[in-house]
């Protein structure tokens, strides 16, 4: 047990060192991530202005005032910093195609566990660098959080949803990447996933703007829990029974994709070793 913990710690530490080789690259990358959000802010500015006939409206759209809208986008940035997994699925598919996956069959190490640890290391490295630009942007935008900061319980639940968003993102993308055992090329599949995720995770617009029956469908799908859900929790949009239900659905999807990734890996390896390697 202790031996295993030491192994995990070593993998984590080495992966972290590897990430820090490219610190300059992702310090810049982090700042660039905020650029698209500016376009969205201007877009909503224009929308609210047109409602208010030339003057920015004090009214709200689907329960969002202009300030709420900006705060929402900033918060989805935070969720996505946890749930997005750049290069995970495509990396797994590439390793399968190139045969690099053999390494995990030959060495006494579990592929999914190994990838999870390296991804945690990536994230830690990322946050340690990204914390500063994030703090700066949030400080500059503090005026948009008109409803004040949530209480500590909500903040704790927010943190829990972020961690689950990370796990969900990881196991979902890992499962997609493992499909590479069956189809050598998964690029177009990943493209579809990206597109769906862009709209249905809440990255593009607050999902509670959707009319029924779409709202109920989206509520049951996993993508919402990658970006929208944590942001909505922070903003106090989900509360009480609805919050508990949301947390349970999110946890359910995490468990589902942990199992899916495990099954895909076991089946995939079986197929791989039967097929050719």
């Amino acid at each position, binding site marked *: 047990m202790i031996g295993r913990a030491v192994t995990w710690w070593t993998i984590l530490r080495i992966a972290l060192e590897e990430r820090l*080789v*490219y610190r300059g690259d992702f310090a810049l990358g982090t700042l660039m991530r905020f650029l698209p959000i500016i376009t969205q802010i201007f877009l909503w500015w224009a929308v609210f202005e047109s409602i208010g006939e030339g003057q920015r409206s004090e009214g709200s759209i689907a329960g969002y005032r202009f300030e709420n809208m900006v705060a929402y986008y900033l918060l989805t940035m935070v969720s996505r910093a946890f749930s997005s997994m750049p290069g995970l699925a495509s990396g797994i598919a590439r390793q399968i195609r190139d045969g690099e996956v053999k390494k995990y069959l030959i060495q006494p190490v579990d592929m999914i566990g190994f990838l999870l640890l390296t991804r945690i290391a990536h994230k830690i490295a990322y946050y340690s660098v990204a914390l500063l630009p994030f703090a700066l942007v949030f400080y500059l935008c503090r005026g948009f959080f008109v409803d004040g900061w949530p209480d500590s319980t909500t903040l704790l639940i927010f943190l829990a949803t972020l961690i689950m968003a990370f796990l969900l993102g990881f196991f979902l993308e890992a499962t997609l990447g493992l499909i590479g055992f069956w189809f050598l090329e998964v690029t177009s599949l990943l493209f579809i996933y990206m597109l769906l995720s862009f709209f249905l995770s809440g990255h593009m617009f607050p999902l509670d703007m959707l009319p029924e029956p779409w709202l109920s469908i989206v509520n049951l799908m996993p993508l919402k829990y990658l970006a929208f859900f944590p942001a909505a929790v922070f903003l106090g949009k989900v509360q009480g029974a609805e919050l508990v239900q949301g947390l349970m659905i999110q946890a359910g999807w995490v468990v589902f994709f942990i199992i899916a990734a495990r099954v895909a890996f076991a089946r995939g390896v079986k197929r791989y070793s039967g*097929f*050719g390697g």
Partner: protein
Amino acid sequence: MALIELRNLTKSFRVYQKREGLMASFRGLWRREYREVQAVRGIDLDVQQGEFVAFLGPNGAGKTTTLKLLSGVINPTSGSALVMGHVPWKRENAYRRRFALVMGQKNQLWWDLPAQESFRLHQQIYRIAPDAFSRTLDELTAMLDVQQLLRQPVRELSLGERMKMELIAALLHSPDVLFLDEPTIGLDVVAQHRIQIFLKEYQQQRNVTILLTSHYMKDIIALCRRVVVIAYGRIQYDGSLAGIRDSFSSHKIVTLQLAETASTDGFHRFGEVLEIQPPRVKLRIDRPAVAGTLAAILAQHTIEDVAVEDPPLEEVIADLFSQAVDGSDRTASPDKVPSAIGSVR
């Protein structure tokens, strides 16, 4: 009991067949044609502890497939294998901690980090005790003379240096069985030689069991006493390197040095004339006929010097490969002409 035991080991793959042309490509979207390729067809092999065995064979012969089966990367279609009492494709950790596979064309080191870090990772993955780890590492780096390169990112190392690091990474957990797939591929002569010397020393010191595939005859001549020739998925020969010549070469090369003024005509009566460079004639003569033919030549010509030699080993093996084609039903790689063994010179 042998350390490695293969019994009737067979592996076949299904390969997608695409016909030529655009229309065929469209048809391939719905209906795919597959062809069964038998990469390994019933191999029986026993390897004792401490043996250094070379797998020799043309491309696509089944050498790498056999190594993959032995390291548990793939499952066989039928047959059995036991390595140190383990069935490789069960992939038990107990087995995985006791062997290593090094592939000359694949690397397992972290590209952006110094080799040292990858070694630490291996220490953890293989649960190597700290003192054993540092002792083995010191020994291996000294043997391969790479102490000063441990802290350099792997991407900045030369191919030869990287291969040395790959070997160290594979040997850190002191495996009892080592599978080497083309370990010297792409290396220059000096680096190849270093690796050969290292492998030889290491094998003698530790008495480990090594299976090696290589296209370089020099590797095999330098390292292995036992050679297993595989072609078209079957073992064609299993024995000493010198034995290959005895069993498969049917003729000898006779070089005659004639008197300066003598004519070089008429030698085709004695055997196949390979080369005439007056006053020198080179003939290929069937083994059993060598003595008689030589007597006849000496009786009819003035000969200043005679040399009787075996044909070069590479040539014998190339012949052996092409015989293997004739002898089998050629489904393994019908499109591939057995290639002679490259880079001997």
